């Protein structure tokens, strides 16, 4: 493609590692953000309001050191976990039911559609109306918004189970229990995992939203606090901490689990289902 020749023309003039080494590229990426950030701040003449990267790094560091963040992080995390557990239970069960039964799929499909489209704010506010300032509010809000995603992933996974494997099992007289465990469950696992991961991310975000609406502690609560004080630095600091945490969970923990769980999937070109 022509981009390749363009790339190689430019590339020819630069030392190679600048555009091939992953870590270097990552750094370039970050530098670009910093530069743009600084430019925007200056450009909009808002060097005070759009706090510079340096200020944020400092205040983030300070916050970490002070230990004030612990209370709020644990609160938020606790609520996320409650919501996520509930989401997993409801989403998985519903997904399997809808996957195995035409009737239930058609009956509940519209609710899934609505659930997917529902503005999260609605869930947060209505949960707040019913449950006030408590751990239940973020949990219910998170579950309501997140479970349709998991449900959909799971029932698609069930639909996608290779029928030929079921027939093969049948011809070898494998018991239903074994088929469910070794074929259905395993077959659905990748889709379930993708859905669970996505739902987890959603739970995080809805939880903080619900905290903003009705809570007395937590990350969302702190962000609102700083917002009301018009402290951009405060908002950005808490956002930074929050984002870093999520990144650690996503790429540190979840990706590792994914690798272990699915090491049978290779990038070998032809996958089992794709070939003849």
């Amino acid at each position: 493609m022509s981009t390749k020749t363009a790339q190689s023309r430019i590339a020819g003039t630069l030392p190679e590692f600048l555009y091939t080494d992953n870590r270097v590229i990552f750094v370039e990426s970050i530098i670009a953000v910093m530069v743009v950030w600084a430019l925007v701040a200056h450009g909009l003449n808002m060097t005070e309001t759009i706090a510079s990267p340096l200020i944020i790094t400092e205040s983030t560091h300070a916050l970490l050191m002070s230990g004030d963040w612990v209370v709020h992080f644990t609160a938020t995390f606790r609520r996320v976990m409650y919501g996520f557990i509930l989401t997993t239970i409801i989403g998985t069960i519903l997904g399997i039911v809808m996957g195995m039964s035409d009737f239930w799929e058609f009956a509940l499909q519209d609710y899934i559609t609505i659930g997917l489209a529902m503005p999260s704010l609605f869930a947060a506010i209505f949960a707040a109306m019913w449950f006030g300032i408590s751990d239940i509010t973020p949990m219910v809000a998170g579950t309501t918004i997140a479970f349709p995603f998991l449900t959909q992933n799971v029932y698609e996974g069930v639909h996608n189970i290779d029928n030929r494997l079921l027939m093969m099992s049948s011809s070898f007289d494998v018991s239903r229990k074994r088929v469910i465990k070794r074929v259905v469950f395993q077959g659905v696992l990748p889709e379930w995992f993708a859905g669970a991961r996505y739902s987890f991310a959603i739970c995080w975000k809805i939880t903080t939203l619900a905290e903003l609406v009705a809570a007395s502690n937590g990350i969302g609560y702190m962000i609102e606090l700083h917002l009301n004080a018009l402290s951009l630095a405060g908002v950005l600091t808490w956002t930074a901490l929050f984002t870093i945490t999520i990144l650690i969970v996503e790429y540190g923990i979840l990706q590792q689990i994914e690798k272990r769980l699915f090491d049978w999937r290779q990038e070998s070109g032809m996958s089992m289902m794709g070939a003849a």
Partner: protein
Amino acid sequence: MATSNRGLPAISLIKSNTWTARLFGLLIGLAAWFALATVFPNDLMPYPYETIELAWGLVESGVAWPNLRDTLLRTFWGFIGSSLLGVALGVFMGINNYSQRFFTPYVVIGLSVPAIAWAAVTTIVYGFSIMAPVVATVLTTFPYVAINVWKGVENLEPNLINMSRSFNISRRRMLRRLIIPSAAPFLFSSFRFGLAISWKIVTIAEIFAASSGVGYKLMQSYQVYKFEEAWAWASLFIIVILGIEYGIIKPIERRVFEYRHDADFALIG
């Protein structure tokens, strides 16, 4: 035994009419609403007809339209902005290895930052202008668009492109007859998600970055404890959303996926 063409052997499927099932589902929903409304105090859970009455009242009094319009307008701009940014990013990431590795951190971080954070930031920066909710939406939504477009670009088969070249097919024709149809399902996914996420973020942003709009009104009703009103606003907006979903999105979805014989209608919800 194993001759059923779907489902597990020996698990009998209840084959039924789609519409009977859907009706059944609808009835359960209504029944549940009624049940909850009876159990809970009136303002927490109004009956369906009460909500409809109130909603109609809002429409009649002329309050509904300006707010709906504002929210939809912001959604529209947010959607446009995130689509432009997302498509650009996605295309680059798909074509060029360097771009992919350069932009991935942006996408990753973009996916992790909660909407309220962006909304808070843009509120402080832009105040009450329309830029606040729109920019917050763009920043939250673009990663989803980018990822889907990226997958679409990656999905292009180099073999088909080489074949086209060997027949000396013009760029323009390739774009129209090969590239766009090949990427169409992914493009559709991106826009569809982009739109849905846009209205979600706009409503969130409106709770502090605006003085009008559905999100704003909803929050207002909540804060003055007029919960039935909150229900009315929510219902109005949901009706609009469903109108868009079933009236616009689903028909297009059917067209886009027609040629795939394993029509994955469920894929995009």
